[in-house]
């Protein structure tokens, strides 16, 4: 049971949250990209062995959609890595 830092509520049990998946790049303008790029954006989800930025929804708390950096090897909630853009 992870403890997830909510910006409004502070650290709370994972069970209060819904997992929202890894954060992807901003949604491209569908009129401005070709099919390949669109499909790549849609289907290629970050899945690193290490820190990943991800969305969580504090569904049973304050309702905030928040992001954290979580190390997939350890579940540690970490600071954003240096190369995080």
């Amino acid at each position, binding site marked *: 049971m992870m403890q997830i830092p909510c910006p*409004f509520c502070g650290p709370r*049990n994972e069970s*209060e949250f819904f997992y929202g998946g890894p954060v992807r790049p901003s949604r491209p303008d569908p009129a401005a990209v070709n099919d390949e790029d669109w499909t790549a954006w849609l289907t290629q989800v970050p899945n690193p062995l290490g820190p990943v930025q991800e969305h969580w929804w504090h569904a*049973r708390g304050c*309702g*905030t959609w928040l992001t954290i950096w979580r190390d997939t090897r350890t579940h540690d909630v970490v600071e954003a890595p240096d190369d995080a853009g």
Partner: protein
Amino acid sequence: MPYDVTFTRLETQALFDLKGRREAVQEWAGEALPACPDQPNSKTEAGGATLMFIGPDHWLLRADLAREAALEATLRPAEAPPEMSIVRVSDTLAFFRVIGPEASEILAIACPMDLHESRFGPDTASFTEAFGIKALVTRCEGGFEVGVEQSFGPMMLDCLTRASC
């Protein structure tokens, strides 16, 4: 009953869901409300009404049901400006009062939050879980109050009964 507690389902409470920036809420409805709480997940009380700061730009006003009509007349949900939202939600939550010397034992079974008085004082009001269901938890005289979505009311009663026996 092995745990020394009593629990009761409260009558429907008047509840209004308020959303918007603090200034917008205060400008429109300030007179009808207790002072806006400063701290996240805290509450203020005045004139028999409680105002809870339960999320970013999100407030919950609670009072006795008898005051619902008067509050609605003051708050005028339909006329409120687009910078804020006021929705009457009195029926959405079923409140349970759990009191007695061992009320905190029951809450420890129900709720994953740390409810120790050093962390969760009389001014605290927060949504969390109770028996795995989203629940609004506050302290009250001699114990706690737990509000869950009204449709889960029978199940809460079931769980409280099992937890306390």
